[in-house]
């Protein structure tokens, strides 16, 4: 790809986008299409933000491809084109395995309606009313009802059903039962639409196609370019400073974390006191740990499912799921069908939720031991699904909240942005400082691949409106 070296970028753009997560890339794409000049700056050497991958031991490991809702089909077609849309395929086998139940599902509404009745003995009336309730939820509805209360209302005392409904969403966006029920309803309904989908060709193909599209539209892309400051004068955005160089811009879109943006890139002194008061209440979501297993070439594994929600904990608990020694993890299994054009490759990615503070405080030796122990726990669990897996694996890598922090620069390595209150801060940034916008995971609902892209479109509309005003 022909990216632009920093010393070759223009002195001025209509828009500078800081960060190339899916939200930042989508903003850049939409605004370039609308006729504005756009510079996309990325601190890392690779585009994509958390939509990323890496190569190790002859394997390609996808970090966050796990599965997204059907809405990606329409969103990708409209905002990224047919080639990207046409590579979206369904994952058929979503597996739950825990002490309360074991089942395989397409994770679609039809299948869940069936499972809730047949396996969990819930009446058709209750199931229909539950789905009607979550389907009708909007982000501007009353936020006081929590997901815990929602579940208690429809499925009182049924911790098994709470687990079925909540566990996947806790992995998807770090939410807990104490979040506003609307955040649950919106995300859960998105998935229930038709099930879980993936991108054939892998994350590297997706980001490659997106980068090509951006270059095609004339976006200047500059990697290895960490922005130091967003320049603000008299309440108006003027540009950015990157590696000591000033680049002027009418609008700046930060696809850095919202907390980084306000605390570090702009500086709190540029904001009004009441805004900072609201901002101080924003909580970042938890981070993640992952263990990546590459299967030796020539070896294979049978179909154990595409995405496995596994736990040996007695009941669902989002607190348990964030513990360093959690017994709960997902396994995303990538078969050769993931990259049909490439030589057959099997990889398995174990993912766990995690708290940054647990990992940040460890000494180098304790950190190394904690990672080894985590890898062993993943191996032990994986052995139940792939007997003899230790002998089949030739490559192992692991990531902790520290790793996520290093690559995304997010406050406390958050994998899912902020809790609900962060959405209002992100949306109202441009009311504080003219020409300053934020896009990225906030408010739980603007999270995940679909949430990030759609939020990119929403913010691009705001920016376009500002630039044409």
């Amino acid at each position: 790809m022909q990216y632009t070296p920093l010393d070759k970028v223009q002195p001025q753009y209509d828009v500078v986008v800081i960060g190339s997560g899916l939200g930042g890339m989508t903003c850049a794409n939409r605004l370039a299409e609308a006729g504005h000049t756009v510079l996309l700056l990325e601190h890392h050497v690779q585009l994509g933000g958390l939509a990323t991958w890496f190569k190790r031991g002859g394997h390609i490991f996808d970090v966050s491809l796990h599965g997204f809702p059907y809405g990606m089909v329409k969103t990708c077609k409209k905002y990224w084109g047919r080639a990207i849309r046409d590579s979206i395929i369904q994952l058929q086998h979503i597996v739950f395995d825990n002490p309360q139940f074991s089942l395989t599902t397409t994770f679609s509404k039809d299948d869940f309606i069936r499972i809730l009745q047949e396996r969990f003995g819930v009446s058709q009336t209750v199931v229909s009313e539950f789905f009607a309730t979550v389907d009708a939820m909007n982000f501007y509805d009353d936020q006081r009802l929590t997901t815990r209360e929602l579940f208690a209302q429809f499925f009182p005392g049924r911790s098994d059903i709470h687990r079925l409904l909540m566990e996947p969403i806790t992995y998807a966006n770090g939410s807990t039962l104490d979040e506003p029920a609307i955040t649950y309803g919106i995300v859960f309904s998105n998935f229930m639409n038709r099930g879980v989908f993936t991108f054939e060709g892998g994350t590297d193909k997706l980001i490659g196609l997106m980068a090509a599209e951006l270059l095609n539209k004339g976006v200047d892309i500059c990697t290895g370019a960490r922005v130091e400051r967003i320049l603000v004068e008299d309440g108006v955005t003027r540009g950015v400073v990157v590696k000591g160089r000033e680049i002027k811009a009418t609008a700046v879109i930060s696809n850095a974390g919202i907390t980084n943006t306000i605390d570090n890139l702009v500086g709190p002194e540029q904001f009004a006191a009441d805004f900072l008061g609201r901002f101080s209440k924003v909580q970042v979501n938890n981070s993640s740990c992952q263990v990546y297993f590459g299967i030796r070439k020539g070896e294979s594994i049978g179909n154990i499912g595409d995405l496995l929600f596994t736990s040996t904990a007695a009941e669902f608990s989002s607190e348990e799921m964030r513990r360093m020694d959690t017994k709960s993890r997902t396994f995303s299994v990538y078969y050769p069908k993931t990259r049909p054009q490439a030589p057959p490759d099997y990889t398995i990615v174990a993912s766990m939720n995690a708290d940054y503070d647990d990992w940040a405080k460890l000494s180098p030796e304790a950190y190394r031991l904690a990672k080894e122990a985590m890898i062993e726990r993943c191996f032990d669990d994986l052995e139940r699904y792939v007997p003899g897996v230790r002998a089949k694996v030739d490559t192992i890598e692991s990531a902790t909240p520290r790793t996520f922090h290093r690559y995304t620069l997010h406050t406390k390595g958050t994998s899912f942005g902020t809790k609900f209150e962060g959405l209002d801060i992100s949306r109202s940034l441009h009311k504080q400082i003219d020409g300053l916008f934020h896009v990225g995971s906030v408010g739980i609902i603007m999270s995940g691949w679909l949430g990030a892209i759609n939020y990119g479109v929403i913010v691009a509309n705001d920016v376009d409106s500002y630039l044409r005003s």
Partner: protein
Amino acid sequence: MTRDEIKDVILEIIEDIDEEADFANLDAEAPLRDQLDLDSMDFLDIVMELRKRYKLQIPEEEYPQLASLASCVNYLEPKLKDV
């Protein structure tokens, strides 16, 4: 622009968003959302396209005016009269 021209523009924009949209039995008075496979993101696309074509700024609180084909035309007619 005349009312008919505005109507054609709206339908053309919707067709760009969804080429499978079927206008044959479209009731101009009924919400577009209920008749075509449109969601809130699609309405945002219509807003952005109108801004691109006619430099028309539609504030967020007025998005509901775009609900049906008839309400679109009523809302846009004074704004596009000199186009």
